């Protein structure tokens, strides 16, 4: 699996306007100015409020293969953006756009998801 780095020139205003992340904890740990796309295999999901929990098996040249835990928008916000309960499941390969950790560690805040059939919740292919 590969990690694609994309630099945003603008803040993800539309995303942040609908994301209550800042209402629940500091957003300082995530770099919303430099979002990246991560592809991998779904190992665990928890569609919940206040945040999505997603564990994916990810491989890159720098750190090899490992499981990474991500968090993301609330279930309610993602549902309103078009996410349906059966769009992907454990074992599926998906792509996500994340705001990576500012400290460079694994993890990040999921702002968009591309499901196995190509459906995009938010904008994965191009930056928001």
């Amino acid at each position, binding site marked *: 699996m590969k990690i694609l780095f994309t630099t945003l020139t603008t803040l993800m205003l539309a995303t942040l306007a609908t994301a209550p992340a800042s*209402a629940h904890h*500091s957003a*300082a740990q995530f770099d919303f100015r430099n979002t990246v796309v991560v592809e991998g295999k779904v190992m665990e999901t928890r569609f*919940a*409020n*206040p945040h999505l929990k997603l564990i994916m098996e990810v491989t890159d040249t720098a750190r090899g293969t490992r499981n990474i835990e991500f968090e993301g928008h609330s279930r*309610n916000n993602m549902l309103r953006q078009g996410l349906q309960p059966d769009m992907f499941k454990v074992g599926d390969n998906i792509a996500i756009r994340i705001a990576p950790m500012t400290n460079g560690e694994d993890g990040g805040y999921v702002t968009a998801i591309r499901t196995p059939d190509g459906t995009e919740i938010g904008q994965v292919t191009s930056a928001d």
Partner: protein
Amino acid sequence: MLKIKILKRSVAGFLTLTAFAATQVFAQGAAQPDFSGAWTTYRGNGGAGAFTAPAGEPKLTPTALAARKEFQSLTEGTNYGAGNACVGSGMPSSMLGSGGYPMEILQRPDQLFVIYEAHTEIRRIYLGEEAGDPANFFPERNGYSTAHWEGDRLIVETSRLKTQVDSRYPHSNETTIREEYYFDKPLEDGTKVLAADMTMTDPLWLEEPFTTTKRWQAMADYHVLSYECSEPKWLDEMEGLYKAAGLKMVQE
């Protein structure tokens, strides 16, 4: 003769009072709108990307500024926060923001329920005979709210608030809030718009009363969802217990 005069006056007085009361009931009943329904943050005619936040910032006293600075020094850049602990916003943040999530109003003659989706935070606004003396109730993050109608406007008075530094709008427990709810001009497509003029008064933490207006628009295509914020934490605890015991957790 005297008895007859008194009786006549009493009957006349009773009839006048009855007629006055009937007029008032009719006038109020005819004018009172129904705010029931699901409401989301006002975006005007600008589409989904538009967002109109309540204007203005409260002018905090030195006492309030010091309290807020102290709180921020402990929490800024951390995961500590009321929302992350699954605690509701409290007034006036619940009414002015609530994380951008929608709200639902259920209205009956003696009580309005306002259900803010975020944290399933509930405000009860008591009218008429259901309205008690706020002094008889313990302070709450959303305080104790009573209301009355003035024509087609609902006037809500809130007191018994807790001192809150973890709020977008820090305030002391001396705070009182007045809200005036009314239907504003609908959108071009006829979508209903609900508005509330809000004034927060705090003799200890505000230099002057803070006034702003919040607007919502009707959610025609969706409804307010459940929001079980503390469930993930409980599931993590359960998972830990099962793992420690060498068992597989089946609960989702």
